[in-house]
């Protein structure tokens, strides 16, 4: 089911499928999530934990990206 905005329990694959433009956010936070074999298993919460990210700031940037479908670059 499509969500209105990314949720912490959603997998990386679900988020990237629904909002492809969020790929730039994953890259800007220096994760290896885009193209990762485990994208369907890892939730946003787990990604933040694995990469030691500030979860609120990570989620905020993801949500910002979803509001701009043509966004190719993320200013982090």
């Amino acid at each position, binding site marked *: 089911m499509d969500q209105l905005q990314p949720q912490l329990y959603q997998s990386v694959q679900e988020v990237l499928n629904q909002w492809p433009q969020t790929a730039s956010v994953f890259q800007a936070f220096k994760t*290896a999530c885009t193209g*990762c*074999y*485990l994208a*369907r*298993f*890892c939730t946003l919460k*787990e990604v933040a934990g*694995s*990469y030691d990210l500030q979860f609120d700031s990570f989620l905020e940037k993801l949500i910002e990206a979803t509001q701009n479908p043509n966004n190719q670059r993320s200013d982090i």
Partner: protein
Amino acid sequence: MPIEPMNLRRVSVFQNATDEDLRLFVQNGVERSLEEGEFFFFQGDPAAYAYILVSGRAKLLQTNPAGQQVNLRTISEWQVFGALGAVRENATYPASAQALEQSTALAIKSDYLHEMMQTRPYLSFDLMKLMTGYIQEMQERYRELATEKVERRIARALLRLTEKMGVKTEDGYIELSFTRQDLAEMSGTTLYTVSRVLSEWERHGLVEAGRERVTIRNPHGIVQIAEELEK
């Protein structure tokens, strides 16, 4: 049990097919059911049929003249395999396909698919996408074999298997079933080396390795090894 035509839309090369086309594929296909260890086809056989795995699991393996085996790929449900004959005339299967458990596949004559491709552009495009995906994967694996450390190759092979077959548990771990021999063949190394590496990873809490099952307790840890990420 008869195959429900609409289920074929779960197959990547049929996702753009009409309902009528899906019915035609089922009508013109033959169901083949095998027990674990039996073969759908052998390396070198004429590629007379393209297969879609409807249930179970299979693997594609190649054998060299000395009898050494290499695992090319694990096939999961709703994946196509052995489709070369639909694209190339007089093709032979470059690998054997063996059932890893009780499995059923829909076998569609290569000639029939080839004929359908003349009037269904989606079929040509989607088969091309499938095959270029294989080429890309083989190029990556070749590069790994030529340039990368064995631990990294094993990690990447494990991740490839996990992507296709892994199941997440309530604890957040990922479980999958395969033999150490499978992993050795997929990563171009020996059973001894795979066992040594898995034991090492188990000591570090990355995995729990059984005889034919692995539980990945620290998925990100395996990714760190596979991608040489900073720890």
